[in-house]
């Protein structure tokens, strides 16, 4: 068995599994649907759950507030859901309440950001440091093989992905003669990306690549460049690659962004794991790291079609 990986308390017995005959209420606690990425995560879960007739999924939105998310989970506990999926706003603050759920014998699937300790059933997500690394690698190898100056538009100050996407990127361009001439916070927002790029293009006209921590900010930067007619001499790369009409895949396909890196939502995988746990009474691996994928003009349309079958 895998129980030797669990120091401390015994894993609660899987009493949740009632097999295919059961009816299951799943609580999905989302950190902030205001982010397109998280909205897509909810949508993916919704879509995937449609194919499991035993599942009813309830969604909450913590609106980027740790406290609210704690309450959301508490309310799920009051409702006595059969399984909890949580995409935590931040790790530490949600750890206690997730543990509380897990200790009550409710299987917990953690998506994207982690919680501390191991009081959860499975974590599914991607590696932001790795994504940052890949972005750096792409810049160093494809866009600026001879080196050059770039600008960085970062995610919200204080958020983990902003740190990790920045760190991975720096790691990959180390020693490649690439200089991050300017780095500004864009708060994940398109208009902030535009505003910051406006100024960056003025103060650092020799910058030739703009690396944004997500696609909306990259798009904003593109708009700022277009307003000054520089859109063709500059390259933009983002992260997320959401398969939605306003997402990065379309932006790459249309040539506005040179590249984006897929940050998988894990929605589909979460429902799959839930089915395994509740319906099939099986174990899931403790950690499920999903791969990223570099999207360029070559593969953008194809990936979009794959992610939106029939649409």
């Amino acid at each position, binding site marked *: 068995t895998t129980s030797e990986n669990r120091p401390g308390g015994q894993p609660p017995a899987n009493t949740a599994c009632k097999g295919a005959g059961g009816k299951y209420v799943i609580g999905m606690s989302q950190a902030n649907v205001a982010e397109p990425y998280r909205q897509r995560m909810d949508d993916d879960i919704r879509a995937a759950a449609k194919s499991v007739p035993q599942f009813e999924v309830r969604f*909450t939105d913590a609106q980027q507030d740790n406290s609210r998310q704690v309450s959301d989970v508490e309310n799920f506990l009051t*409702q006595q859901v059969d399984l909890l999926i949580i995409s935590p706003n931040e790790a530490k603050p949600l750890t206690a309440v997730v543990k509380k759920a897990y200790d009550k014998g409710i299987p917990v699937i953690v998506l994207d950001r982690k919680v501390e300790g191991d009081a959860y059933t499975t974590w599914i997500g991607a590696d932001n440091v790795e994504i940052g690394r890949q972005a750096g690698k792409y810049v160093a190898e494809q866009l600026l093989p001879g080196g050059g100056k770039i600008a960085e538009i970062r995610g919200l100050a*204080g958020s983990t992905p902003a740190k990790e996407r920045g760190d991975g990127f720096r790691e990959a361009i180390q020693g490649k003669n690439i200089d991050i001439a300017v780095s500004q916070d864009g708060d994940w927002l398109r208009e902030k990306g535009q505003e910051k790029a406006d100024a960056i293009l003025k103060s650092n006209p020799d910058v030739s690549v703009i690396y944004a921590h997500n696609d909306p900010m990259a798009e904003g930067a593109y708009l700022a460049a277009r307003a000054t007619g520089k859109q063709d001499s500059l390259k933009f790369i983002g992260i997320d690659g959401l398969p939605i009409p306003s997402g990065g895949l379309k932006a790459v396909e249309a040539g506005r962004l040179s590249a984006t890196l897929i940050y998988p939502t894990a929605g589909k995988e979460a429902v799959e794991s839930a089915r395994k746990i509740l319906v099939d009474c099986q174990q899931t691996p403790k950690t499920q790291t999903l791969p990223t994928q570099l999207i360029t003009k070559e593969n953008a349309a194809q990936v979009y079609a794959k992610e939106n079958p029939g649409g």
Partner: protein
Amino acid sequence: MIFRFQSLFGLVAVFIAAIVFSPSRNGELLFLTSDNLFNVVRAVSEIGIIAVGMTFVILIGGIDLSVGAMLGLAAVGSAVLLVENDFGLIPTVVIVLAVGLVFGLLQGIASALFSIQAFIVTLAGLQIARGLARIWSGGQGVAIAYGDGPGEAPVTFSLLGERTFNGLVPIPALIFIVVAVLAILFLRGTAFSRHVYAIGGNEKAARLSGVPVTRVKIIVFGICGLLAALAGIIHAGQLNQGSPNDGLGYELDAIAAVVVGGTSLAGGRGSVVGTVAGALLLGVLNNILALNSVDTNVQLLIKGLVIVVAAGLQRLRPS
């Protein structure tokens, strides 16, 4: 006389509605389980404590938009002092409360002494507190680990996330109740409170009647900052972390609680009892909507309408 308790009517109405609409399991109304009721109080405790301070500010005809940012600053401060500076519990709490107090007093001075509108002073205060929190924390959430070693916070601090009385009453709820009771007594019985109401009623008359208007105003902003800092400490204790983005938008929630509780934004009229009722009303509303898994967007619509209706009902009291 009837109207003295009018702010409670809305709460009672929403409470009854919550019972009626409560989902049940095994014949038990989920809303009414003691666990759930205390969850509600716990969930409103931070906003509630802030709203108590906000009540004072609004009573003098002011407003404080900086409280949410102050909560974030205090949460960060608690975490950094406990974990990075290895301060003890008492020094940390004292320092953080002092930061809140001083920040509030400074805002009071800007607003009362230089007569700049409170709205704008505290809007600027919001930005400044947020900036300070980011700088203090290095931009990152600071996690709090417990233990006796260096870089670990005293275990006592984690009590803020616990429950007492047989694991029933969350500590933050308890603190909220204590703060509210103290504030109610204070606003009923002290000369200072008479001055607060007088300033909100007619500042010029209050000044000519010998009320130390400037001093009272400054102190009131200080109290508000202090209580926001207290909420921030609780926040850090509950979440085992202080993050510079904590408390985003709490100011509007707190103001909503105050107004739904019947305190007039024009000043001079209102009570802490009303504010507590207002905070609980909004908490019960959030809770029952969540228990029924109402769609988040529809929740926004319903909450908006309830706030308007509740504020509208307040108008029915004779003027």
